[in-house]
């Protein structure tokens, strides 16, 4: 994008990000860095952000609120970075966003979509994903309810971490499915610190529900299917909020048994979205592996860069105040599809979230049909 950029050579700039290199969120932190770095490489290759060469500065927040607050203050006041991008998780995004707002910086962020991010009266936050978190499973419910009455699952089991990211999604899906006549045969919330998921998984298996909807992060996203395999429990459909979207990190632990598992995703390597092919090929060139290895976190981070790039061009400035007002208007193209932001920074009018499903060892888009590269496999095949 931005082919009309006036390319007067301008001073190089630094963009600051606090990422979790250690602690609870360190896994995702790494993917963010990959996405941001790739974007910086791209933008510099085409002459910089409005002509400013971009350097990324990452600092570790050790997954702690105290450190994330410190980091953004330091980035803005000591390193005097021109722009800041967001960290991983709503938990850290919220404390960070107040600090960033204090200095009137724009705060485009890839991973803080929890409900409270948008109700704090801040105008500088922009959540660069196709939908606010709680709507993540909406298209999945649409899909289930669109099935012919005979095939439609009769009952559903829900289990979710009590995490501000996962639970709202599952709760919303539950109310929509119940409204659509799908009986709830099990519902359980479990603590985010749980390490042994087997009893909950067993209870889900015991419910013998047709559909299983799980609010997971990576470890439980693996643990649940494993227990189902052990118990020879074959629901017709399984969806997990996060985990299956993380490529080989996920499939590496389940082997062939990933097949049939679904995940809501704003992005897939195969999507015909703006700049996606280039992103995928460059990603593989830079970091190796296959398209299946690319984490959605990286794509989301990359999208943040894309949005900022377009806003800068549009505003013809990289001034934060101008960027903020520009970002509140108009639509922006990303590898996750087009999106725009309301007054609180919530994405609106986007295409919503797609459904991805593992089929023959690959995660592909299966719904809605407009983006699908194959029809959903339903009911899911038995475990091997």
């Amino acid at each position, binding site marked *: 994008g931005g082919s009309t950029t006036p390319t007067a050579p301008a001073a190089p700039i630094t963009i600051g990000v606090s990422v979790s*290199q*250690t*602690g*609870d969120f*360190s*896994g995702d*932190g*790494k993917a963010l860095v990959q996405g941001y770095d790739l974007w910086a490489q791209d933008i510099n290759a085409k002459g910089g952000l409005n002509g400013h060469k971009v350097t990324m500065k990452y600092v570790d927040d050790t997954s702690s609120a105290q450190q994330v607050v410190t980091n953004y203050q330091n980035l803005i006041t000591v390193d005097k970075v021109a722009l800041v991008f967001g960290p991983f998780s709503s938990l850290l995004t919220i404390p960070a966003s107040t600090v960033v707002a204090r200095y009137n910086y724009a705060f485009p962020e890839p991973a803080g979509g929890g409900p409270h991010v948008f109700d704090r009266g801040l105008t500088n936050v922009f959540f660069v994903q196709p939908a606010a978190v709680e709507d993540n499973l909406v298209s999945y419910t649409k899909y289930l309810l669109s099935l012919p009455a005979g095939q439609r699952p009769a009952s559903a089991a829900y289990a979710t971490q*009590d995490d501000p990211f996962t639970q709202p999604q599952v709760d919303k899906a539950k109310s929509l499915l119940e409204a659509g006549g799908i009986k709830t045969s099990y519902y*359980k*919330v*479990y*603590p985010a*610190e*749980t*390490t*042994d998921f*087997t*009893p*909950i998984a*067993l*209870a889900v298996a*015991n419910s013998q529900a047709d559909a299983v909807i799980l609010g997971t992060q*990576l*470890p439980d996203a*693996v*643990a649940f299917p*494993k227990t189902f*395999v*052990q*118990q*020879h429990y074959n629901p017709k459909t399984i969806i997990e909020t996060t985990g299956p979207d993380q490529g080989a*990190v996920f499939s590496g*632990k389940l*082997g062939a*048994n990933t097949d049939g598992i679904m995940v809501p995703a704003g992005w897939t390597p195969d999507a015909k979205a703006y700049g996606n092919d280039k992103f995928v090929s460059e990603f593989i060139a830079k970091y190796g592996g296959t398209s299946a290895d690319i984490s959605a976190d990286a794509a989301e981070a990359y999208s943040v860069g894309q949005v900022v790039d377009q806003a800068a061009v549009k505003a013809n400035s990289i001034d934060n105040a101008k960027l903020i007002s520009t970002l509140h208007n108009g639509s922006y193209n990303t590898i996750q599809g087009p999106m725009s932001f309301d007054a609180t920074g919530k994405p609106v009018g986007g295409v919503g979230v797609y459904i991805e499903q593992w089929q023959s060892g690959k995660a592909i888009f299966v719904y809605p049909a407009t983006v699908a590269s194959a029809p959903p496999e339903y009911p899911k095949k038995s475990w091997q």
Partner: protein
Amino acid sequence: MTLVLEAAVLGVLTGGVYALMASGLTLIFGVMRIINVGHGALVVLGAYLSFAASRSLHIDPFLTLVITMPVMFLLGMVLQIVFIRPLKTDREALSVLVTYALALGIEGLLGYFFTANYTQLQAWYDTASFPIGSFRITYVYVFGFALCLAILAVMFLVLYRTTFGASIRATMLNRTAAQLIGIDVDRVSAVAFGIGMATAAAGGVVFGITTAFNPGSHYDLISRLLTIIVLGGLGSLRGAIVAALIMLVSEDITAVLISPVWANFVFFVILVGVLLIRPQGLYGVRVRDRL
């Protein structure tokens, strides 16, 4: 009801895994009066070593113990000699700091070499299961439980049936007196630390197969292990086993009967309740103190 029963069975099986991990911790405490808060990190280290070994040598995770246990044993001796032996005063308190620092260091190094992504060890038996009634038991838990019993039995025999074991216990109880009867207390302490670490390696394998882990997993682990050994009675191997079973069974049953979010809570209530009645834990001995 069957659910409760299943939860109980499962609790017993996973409890075995925790018992194995906790036994090394309680051993080190028993012998050296050191609360090794780095033990969780050592378990995670063991899991990573097994992970690396099974990857590169294409062998079964349990088989990697042949390599990782001796490696961890030696590493334990080195760590003890370099970091713990120099503590002359206030060993008990300071060793908490030292082992905490070790845990951080290990976490950092693991993050450096293995990244912070979650990993899990793989073997055919991690999903394979056999039926008992309507319920299916996964082989890995059975293997883990067997390994736990075997290692605990060996440890018990070594500690309580050999002169070397007696010298380990003597060293813990009175260093000066142990020196005066000719025990090489430095060597004994190093070996005991090594043994504790070797059991961490064994625990690491089973932990790594049953749970996804990353370098930061040790925080959760150590708080659970510490509560186990205190409930069981510090220094008591038998206590560690029983307490691990109580912990996992009570948690799993609560998860089924009430809700998983209260599972830990119920366990803590049990813990606090027991300690109020028996401050020394289930099997702890209250050493009569110089009255």
